[in-house]
């Protein structure tokens, strides 16, 4: 299996670190990139060319949903998964509308494993 690249978008440094560690502990050769805001993610997504984007919903500035919408419009082929501590029906529905994934926080090893499983196939 070729090593994959994952882009983690979250304003919390520690959350990004946790997600990175979980991914790397499952696949030491995979590349993990980080962005602290929706805006930064949009700027860098083309050059990073990730196989999966994990997008925190609650961020200052643009916010995860707006960033996911724009990213979907620009790069429809890139899988995105929204991560949120606050499971709201509206968020779940919006994710379905956009055709992207949805995962509840807190980030755990099991949840990360579930999110990256499709890439291992």
């Amino acid at each position, binding site marked *: 299996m070729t090593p994959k690249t994952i882009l983690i978008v979250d304003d*919390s440094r520690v959350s990004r670190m946790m997600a990175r560690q979980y991914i790397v502990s499952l696949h030491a050769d995979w590349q993990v990139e980080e962005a602290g805001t929706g805006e930064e993610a949009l700027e860098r997504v083309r050059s990073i060319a990730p196989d999966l984007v994990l997008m925190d919903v609650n961020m200052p500035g643009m916010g995860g949903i707006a960033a996911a919408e724009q990213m979907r419009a620009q790069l429809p082929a890139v899988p995105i998964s929204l991560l949120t*501590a606050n499971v709201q029906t509206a968020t779940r529905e919006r994710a379905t509308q956009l055709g992207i994934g949805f995962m509840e*926080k807190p980030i755990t090893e099991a949840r990360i494993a579930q999110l990256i499983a499709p890439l291992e196939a």
Partner: protein
Amino acid sequence: MDAHLQHRLQLLESVLCAVNVGAIVLDSERRIVLWNTWMARHSARSGEEMVGQDFFAVFPELRGQRVDTAIQQALYNNFPSLLSQTLNKAPFPLFAQPGVDCERLQQAVEVSPVTAPDAPRYCLIQINDVSIAVGRERLLREQAMVLRSQTFSDGLTGIANRRHFDVAMEKEHRRAKRGCLPLSLLMIDIDNFKAYNDHYGHQKGDQCLIQVAAALAGILKRPADLMARYGGEEFAIILPDTDVEQASLMAEALRLRASELAIPHERSSSDLRQVTVSIGIATQQHDRPVDISTLIGAADRALYQAKRGGRNRIHSCLPD
């Protein structure tokens, strides 16, 4: 024209020429019919020269620009226009000392329709010199920026900010190396803080940060010990001249203090349903100094282990 009217006309013209504002009047064909003394003074072009000339022959660079649109609005629609100094940088070539200065005056411009009996509308252009106000504002803004970059306190919690941490870390790291002393670093992260914010709102989230910061900072005893806000919900503590055991004791005291605050947290991942913290510890030993980034990396790894181990606990890692 009778004498009274003639006198009045001359009086009004003198007044218009004397006002401390630039005044240009254009007729419906955009010819200059009035160019007052202020304009002459700041453009080095006299009224005699200018009267009768086509406005856009004198100022060809203004054709198609905002001033042009404003003149049209006044002549055709009878509407006044405002040209702010922020959006229109010095449209007219006017100087405090024409011929001497290179920089134009900062200008606030108003273009208004003027009705005349039995004639198509005229248009009045008023130009105000706002250089002083603009200069003052620029100075204030620069001062605010300087102040902001100089400050060492975090605006929300009042403890040291990231900038202070970076500076202090450099200093203590150097001191530890020179004095062959151990240096410990604690990385503290509030558990499930995002969930707290989502559930209780950002204002309560801010209050939580303030409370936790104050409680933890209160435990530090020595003047060289520094607690700083490292990130959104993260704190870092520099403990100079502190070995692994002492650092671990301190970390446990901090962890306990945080949970003693008993701040309710319905969305906490632990059964306690309270706000808790996880703490990562890294110590640079007295005889084995490492890079600052290596030390921080070790504290981060330790923090990760604490989180992974279930949160509300401390963990220590060796820098390698």
